[in-house]
């Protein structure tokens, strides 16, 4: 790979041991993917996870003296102070989250603790070269904004933040951004939830090819686009999609395929969505809780739930995970009061895949997010997956 003098300096240790380790990893990555050179990145996001590998690597970089040249926003761990008020947090988990916070601060990250930085605080422009990790983020950056990122791991994104560079390959190159498979959506897409199922169903049929959707509604909400990307990238490794007439690199079908023919054409029917739904949901029955916000809910979604529970009483505990900014706004708008009066709450700076939810292990909940259900298998949490409205009805009845 061709490196500039400055990049060679990083590799030789001229900028310290931490930068050297980061550059070494990036050169190895570049070699695997035949990158010709490095390119500067202007934005980064690190999918902090507050788990062993995450903490091990960021502390290793801090101890080696690394400091981010491009300060990344970061994913949530959990809101220690909030959970200490409602449940017991073990000494070990307390120590881990405090160490995680400190390490990311020391390495020079911006401690946003949210998984939707692309909606607020870290929003790229069209064509910008970036390095985002977090499965709902990469498709949004590539598809909705037309900015460019590979499907970074938390660690490779941190390396990019430290060196301010990324190897030039994959989705950073024009030719790799073209659509590969035409997805004709015969199923009726009625709401944001149907985008979850659509996103989950597609990788099963086309593997990890870049899909070009036709015949979906042409004014999907931000939540719909977020859901579609999050599930495409959970059920498979699909960090980019096109929707003809919606996303900026797909004004027309020809545009999306960059003039080539689709490698394949698939259809997604009502039955496909039903089948995927049956496959991922646990069976109904008595429920103990409702959990939303994987990815973090935006203010419109919070408002929607708030309207549904206004003046009503929930039978089971309901949590909405969101960013601290959205929580503050929800407070200002009165949504937080409404939710709390009904027996629910908003939790900021928190991911569902964290030990703070231990009080829900072994229990059954409802959620609108297949991604939430998928990753909590390890935590022995069961999820019935439904659209938000049905989830709320279930939370009021205590069963589904």
């Amino acid at each position, binding site marked *: 790979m061709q490196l500039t003098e400055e990049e060679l300096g990083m590799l030789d240790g001229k900028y310290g041991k931490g930068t050297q380790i980061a550059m070494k*990893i990036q050169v*190895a990555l570049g070699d695997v*993917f035949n990158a010709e050179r490095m390119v500067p990145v202007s934005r980064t996001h690190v999918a902090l996870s507050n788990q062993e*590998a995450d903490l091990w690597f960021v502390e290793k970089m801090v101890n080696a003296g690394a400091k981010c040249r491009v300060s990344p926003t970061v994913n949530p761990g959990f809101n220690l102070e909030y959970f200490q008020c409602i449940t017991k947090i073990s000494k070990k988990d307390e120590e881990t989250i405090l160490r995680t916070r400190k390490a990311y601060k020391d390495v020079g990250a911006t401690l946003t603790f949210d998984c939707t930085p692309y909606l607020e605080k870290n929003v790229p422009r069209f064509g910008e070269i970036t390095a985002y990790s977090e499965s709902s983020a990469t498709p949004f950056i590539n598809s909705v904004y037309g900015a460019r990122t590979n499907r970074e*791991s938390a660690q490779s994104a941190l390396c990019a933040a430290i060196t301010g560079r990324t190897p030039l390959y994959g989705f950073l190159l024009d030719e790799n951004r073209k659509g590969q498979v035409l997805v004709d959506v015969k199923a009726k897409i009625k709401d944001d939830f149907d985008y979850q199922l659509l996103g989950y169903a597609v990788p099963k049929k086309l593997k*990890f090819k870049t899909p070009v959707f036709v015949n979906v509604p042409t004014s999907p909400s931000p939540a719909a686009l977020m859901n579609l990307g999050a599930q495409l990238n959970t059920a498979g490794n699909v960090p980019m999609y096109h929707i003809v007439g919606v996303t900026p690199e797909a004004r027309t079908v020809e545009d999306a395929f960059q003039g080539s023919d689709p490698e394949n054409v698939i259809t997604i029917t009502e039955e496909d969505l039903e089948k995927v739904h049956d496959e991922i949901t646990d069976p109904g029955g008595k429920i103990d809780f409702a959990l939303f916000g994987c990815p973090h809910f935006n203010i419109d979604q919070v408002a929607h739930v708030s309207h549904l529970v206004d003046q009503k009483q929930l039978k089971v505990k309901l949590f909405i995970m969101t960013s601290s900014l959205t929580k503050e706004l929800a407070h200002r708008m009165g949504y937080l009061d409404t939710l709390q009066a009904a027996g629910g709450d908003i939790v900021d700076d928190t991911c569902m895949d964290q030990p703070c939810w231990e009080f829900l292990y072994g229990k059954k909940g409802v959620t609108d997010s297949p991604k939430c259900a998928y990753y909590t*298998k390890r935590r022995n949490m069961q999820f019935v997956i439904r659209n938000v409205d049905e989830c709320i009805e279930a939370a009021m009845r205590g069963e589904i």
Partner: protein
Amino acid sequence: MTETFACHKVSEGIIEGDILLSSDDLCFYLVDPKTGVVIEKNHSLEGQSIAGKILVFPSGKGSSVVQADGMYQLKMSGKGPKALIIKYPDTVLVASSIIMEMPVVDKVDEQFYQQVKNGDHVLLDATNGHLQIK
């Protein structure tokens, strides 16, 4: 009889071990770190242990966070695979493997895929890009 196949280094290392084949893509987070048993529903390896195996599968999958966490936990518990033979490298799996020092190769001769069976004993030299079925 020993047969040698060419392959391409993703992450360096030289190791010997027994083959375990997976027709499905793999997310290391959905493997129990205490036992190395795959816990993902409907996965072709569901209920089987990947501990100490040289794992052959098409590609990694799963979010950008959990692949590294899963791999790290398996490494720490000693229940991880010895090496990986993949078809489609992705950034997450590649970066995780390099950081965890897990030998990984791709671009293996098509011949290899036609011959290899579960339990075959293999010598994998990722660093120099070759692979032997013993």
